[in-house]
């Protein structure tokens, strides 16, 4: 083992000797510094390696050959090895990144850089308080020098602010240290920890001053204007070091001195962290300067970590693993993002859209942002999960709320940024910046991120159930992205099919899961078939689609809350990238993502609260919730309902589904929405039929379902956009499903499953066909269509079948659903809600008629005279789905009896009695097969009759009926179905006033206003920032020590 003391020797030896190098040998000097950093990384790395292999124990290195406390000692333990390795890696990669900038400006900054990295190493390792102070000062001064790498007035100002603020902070630290010496008689940290037992006032003040200084070094909100300015003004290469290495060091130093101070400050630390986490992220929402935004985000992340340090007593030995997982995500992501910022070189986040020209950087950018928010498979996901479940288990609900709120606020601006980068018009990035030495560090940080995610996964109890193979497959597809669509499509279908077969074995004895598995994966395959109609390469489509399907399949096979949530998040990420592909999808995908993240956090909160009941982390634990059951169930239900787009949480759906690409719409509508349904099914089955603690909840949710239905159907009827009409129809259908499941009887659940299956079948058909038509005709607006029946007869028949199912008209399976549904309502006795449902059923006919009439019947538009049928690749899956409808309609028994049996353990088995093909309920009977035969025969007869008649009819060409004196300035008014329900709108249109949209918009405005008001404290004045720091110290002192 090479002693860590050589880190100092190498760094200072090289730094001092750089004085020999003149201007001509700068490159050589640079290489020497690089070698030095490499050596330092090697030293810390070999210790890390030894600790991980248990070949080395915690080692104290004495300087000057004397025992501590008389001389300064350095400690090299696992923590130190990990952190010095992180710092040195960041330093090394950062140097590679900055090589050109640093070496062209003379030797001085090379020296400063090397000493800077070294100072962090020593302050991490030293066990002497005053030595810590000295190397902290070195770090400060070195940073004040590195800020000068950019020759701009902003950098000078930021450096000055930084120097003054840290001067004050270190002054207070110095007083604290000398007072600690006065009371403890030693400067050795371990001695001082022991001395803490003899608490006197002087040691309390000393502890306070030391603590407040180390807290302020972390740049806590709001006393951090000086720190934020450094992030903004410094070269991004330096910003990345500040964010990754300095923050890492600062956090560990706080952790290191915390025992000296004693545990009485832990609650204050939590509060400080919470203020920082939420406040700083709030400030971030108003930022459009990438560096400043990253600065606020860094402060926020450090705040979260401060919370974790403050929670150490309740987290126990979980503290460091949790902290590490979040820290390492922050570390890799921030370093990478700052480095990307240095390549882009722009003051506005919108200019980052240039990243699209580099798929690798684009992928890493997305990964970095998602890692910051805490999505799987990144390490922070594991940390947040562990943190929240432990906190929930300890019934520390405030912490759960704070962490989720802060994370959500962070997601607000990070997802906005991601949306910009994916969608808005591309701004070219300077080519000369895309050099290898600027990109390699980013790649390595990306690798670190993924590797750490994998490591965290293996450390997690439930991590073993996470299958990495599909992720590798998805990555492979990403690598093969340059291949044509047909190849990737086939590969994806093959992958899904293989995965379906693979998973089928896992759910063979669980019909409910089988049903959803079929919907998710077979549905996925069918929608992929339509993908053959697409041309070009569709960059990024297949990996993200498969990611969504992977998540969907995963929530079915999940055994525990952890893997359920993991896959839920994968699905969310995948679907977001799918939805945002649409031309005008940016704002809709954004709101989809915010609602999804919000919903996911509600789920997380629900799981965290569930942990308080101590029934373990398996999904079956939901059956035995003893503490706050109504909250647990409520949070989970609302979380799932954000996915099923129930009233109040639906505003993202019309845009997201309506604007998505033509084959993405069926994916997200027919398939993805069922994820929420599946969640509700699992939840409600866990609640059980007679659960007094959920009765109120289910009643309320029932009303929500009914109202959702009405709102959805009415809004659909007033749409002019064909795809939005279908989207609102989905909202309504999911309302039916929610309503059915909340009734909690076997009959209702049969209805619910029938609706679920039906909605999957017909909504897939409708979105496939209408989507293809929309693409073909080049318009979403139904008033620009018409008369397509002759041009697209197959499409017409498919749509006709679908709307017969939606309308619940015999003989198709929609009728079965309706029949079961009304039976269930009458049995349950929910008459008011039932009436509402019945009424909205009628409203549904309005939009169904409008859809089929305005698209297929009526007047053919002039410019559509040469249209022909849509692609066979779209028709094939549609007709396969129609076959499904036909089978379900003709043989409902074969489907319904197994479902009855599957849910019988939960609800009893007395809903239906089957007599042959006839289903008998308490209220009447229904015979699907006979109806199918009768109605089918009648239909055939009438069809035949019509065909015979039509032979005699005179053929006329269609002509435009807009004529005579009128010149239509608003062409839509010439279509008969435009605003066809104006009368209804006048009468009951007030019911669809977008109150909910207004509400959410107000919330957003209010948040942004708050952020705008809050950030006025960052006035830019050095003096104000000084006052903030002092104010922070004084207020903290009065609160924590005032009553001493």
């Amino acid at each position: 083992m090479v002693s860590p003391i050589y880190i100092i020797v190498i760094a200072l030896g090289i730094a001092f000797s750089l004085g020999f190098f003149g201007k001509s040998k700068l490159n050589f000097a640079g290489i020497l510094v690089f070698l030095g950093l490499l050596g330092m990384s090697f030293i810390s790395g070999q210790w890390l390696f030894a600790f991980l292999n248990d070949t080395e124990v915690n080692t104290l290195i004495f300087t000057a050959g004397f025992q501590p406390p008389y001389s300064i000692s350095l400690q090299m333990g696992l923590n130190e090895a990990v952190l010095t390795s992180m710092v040195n890696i960041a330093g090394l990669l950062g140097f590679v990144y900055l090589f050109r900038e640093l070496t062209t400006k003379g030797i001085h900054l090379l020296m400063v850089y090397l000493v800077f990295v070294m100072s962090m190493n020593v302050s991490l390792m030293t066990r002497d308080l005053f030595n810590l102070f000295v190397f902290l000062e070195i770090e400060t001064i070195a940073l004040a020098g590195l800020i000068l790498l950019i020759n701009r007035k902003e950098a000078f100002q930021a450096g000055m602010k930084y120097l003054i603020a840290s001067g004050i902070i270190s002054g207070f630290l110095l007083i604290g240290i000398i007072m600690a010496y006065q009371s403890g008689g030693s400067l050795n940290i371990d001695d001082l920890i022991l001395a803490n037992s003899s608490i006197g006032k002087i040691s309390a003040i000393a502890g306070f001053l030391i603590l407040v200084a180390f807290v302020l070094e972390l740049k806590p909100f709001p006393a951090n204007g000086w720190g934020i300015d450094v992030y903004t003004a410094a070269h991004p290469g330096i910003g990345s070091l500040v964010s990754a290495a300095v923050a890492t060091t600062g956090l560990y130093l706080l952790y290191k001195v915390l025992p000296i101070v004693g545990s009485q400050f832990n609650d204050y630390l939590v509060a400080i962290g919470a203020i920082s986490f939420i406040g700083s992220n709030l400030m971030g929402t108003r930022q459009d300067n990438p560096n400043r935004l990253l600065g606020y985000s860094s402060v926020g992340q450090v705040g979260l970590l401060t919370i974790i340090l403050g929670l150490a007593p309740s987290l126990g030995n979980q503290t460091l693993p949790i902290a590490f997982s979040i820290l390492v995500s922050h570390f890799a992501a921030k370093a990478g993002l700052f480095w990307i910022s240095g390549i882009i070189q722009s003051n506005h986040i919108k200019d980052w859209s240039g990243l699209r020209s580099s798929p690798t950087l684009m992928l890493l950018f997305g990964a970095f942002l998602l890692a910051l928010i805490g999505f799987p498979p990144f390490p922070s996901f594991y940390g947040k999960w562990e943190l929240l479940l432990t906190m929930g288990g300890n019934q520390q609900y405030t912490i759960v709320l704070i962490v989720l709120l802060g994370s959500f606020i962070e997601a607000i601006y990070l997802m906005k940024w991601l949306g910009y980068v994916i969608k808005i018009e591309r701004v070219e990035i300077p080519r000369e910046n895309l050099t290898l030495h600027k990109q390699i560090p980013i790649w390595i940080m990306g690798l670190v991120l993924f590797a750490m995610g994998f490591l965290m996964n293996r450390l997690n109890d439930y991590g073993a159930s996470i299958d990495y193979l599909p992720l590798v497959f998805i990555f492979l597809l990403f690598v093969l992205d340059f291949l044509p669509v047909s190849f990737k499509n086939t590969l994806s279908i093959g992958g899904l099919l293989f995965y379906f077969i693979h998973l089928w074995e896992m759910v063979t004895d669980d019909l409910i899961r089988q049903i959803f598995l079929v919907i998710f994966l077979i549905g996925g395959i069918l929608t992929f078939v339509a993908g053959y109609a697409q041309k070009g390469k569709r960059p990024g489509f297949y990996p993200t689609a498969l990611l969504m399907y992977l998540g969907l399949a995963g929530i079915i096979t999940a055994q525990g809350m952890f893997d359920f949530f993991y896959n839920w998040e994968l699905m969310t990420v995948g679907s977001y990238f799918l939805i945002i592909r649409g031309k005008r999808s940016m704002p809709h995908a954004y709101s989809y993502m915010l609602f999804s993240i919000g919903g996911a956090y509600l789920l997380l909160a629900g799981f965290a609260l569930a942990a308080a009941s101590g029934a373990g982390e398996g999904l079956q634990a939901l059956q035995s919730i003893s503490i706050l059951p109504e909250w647990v169930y409520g949070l989970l239900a609302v979380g799932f309902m954000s996915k099923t787009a129930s009233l109040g949480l639906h505003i993202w759906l019309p845009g997201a589904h309506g604007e998505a690409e033509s084959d993405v719409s069926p994916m997200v509508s027919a398939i993805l929405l069922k994820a929420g349904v599946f969640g509700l099914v699992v939840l409600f089955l866990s609640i059980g039929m007679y659960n007094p603690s959920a009765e109120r909840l289910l009643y309320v949710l029932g009303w929500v379902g009914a109202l959702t239905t009405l709102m959805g159907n009415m809004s659909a009827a007033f749409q002019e956009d064909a795809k939005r009409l279908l989207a609102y129809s989905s909202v309504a259908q999911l309302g039916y499903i929610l309503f059915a499941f909340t009734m909690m009887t076997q009959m209702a659940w049969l209805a619910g499953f029938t609706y679920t299956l039906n909605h999957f079948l017909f909504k897939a058909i409708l979105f496939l066909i209408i989507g293809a038509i929309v693409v073909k005709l080049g318009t979403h607006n139904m008033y620009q269509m018409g008369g397509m029946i002759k041009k697209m007869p197959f499409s017409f028949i498919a749509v006709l079948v679908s709307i017969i199912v939606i309308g619940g008209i015999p003989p198709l399976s929609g009728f079965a659903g309706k029949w079961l549904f009304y039976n269930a309502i009458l049995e349950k006795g929910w008459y008011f809600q039932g009436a509402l449902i019945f009424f909205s059923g009628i409203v549904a006919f309005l939009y169904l008629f409008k859809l089929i009439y305005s698209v297929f019947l009526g007047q053919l538009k002039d410019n559509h005279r040469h249209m022909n049928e849509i692609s066979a690749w779209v028709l094939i899956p549609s007709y396969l789905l129609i076959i499904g409808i036909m089978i379900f309609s003709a043989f409902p028994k074969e489907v319904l009896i197994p479902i009855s049996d599957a849910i019988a353990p939960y609800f009893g088995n007395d809903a239906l009695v089957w007599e042959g093909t006839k289903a008998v309920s308490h209220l009447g009977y229904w015979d699907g097969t006979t109806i199918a035969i009768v109605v089918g025969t009648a239909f055939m007869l009438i069809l035949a009759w019509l065909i015979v008649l039509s032979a005699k009819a005179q053929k006329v060409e269609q002509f435009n009926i807009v004529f005579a004196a009128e010149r239509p300035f608003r062409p839509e008014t010439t279509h008969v179905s435009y605003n066809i329900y104006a009368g209804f709108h006048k009468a009951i249109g007030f019911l669809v006033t977008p109150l909910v949209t207004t509400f959410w918009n107000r919330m957003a405005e209010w948040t942004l206003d708050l952020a705008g008001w809050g950030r006025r404290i960052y006035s830019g004045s050095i003096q104000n920032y000084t006052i903030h720091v002092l104010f922070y110290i004084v207020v903290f002192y009065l609160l924590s020590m005032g009553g001493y």
Partner: protein
Amino acid sequence: MVQVILIIGLMLMLLGIYGFMQSKNLLKIVIAFTLFNTGINIIMVSVGYLADAKAPILDKLPDLNEIPNMVDPVPQAMVLTAIVIGLGVTALMLSYVLKLHQEKRSLDINNFKDLKW
């Protein structure tokens, strides 16, 4: 006796802080910083003080197990270090001030608000 030194140190420190908050002139802020620093150094020295003890410089090798009568040398060593650090920071601040002055020909802090929000 030592309390007087401590009070002087604390007062100097407060004076420096007042200067930070009140001065509009960058140079005066740097001077306030040195006052603040000096105050802290005086506080540190006062901590090691023992009544009637000598400076920690020995005339002869002490006998084994004999503790010579002297003040605590540790704070003195720390002050030595702290002074040098303070010197470094002050020098750096001054050169920053020079640089800022070059930029705007002014020392008024209100002229240096280019970064905000």
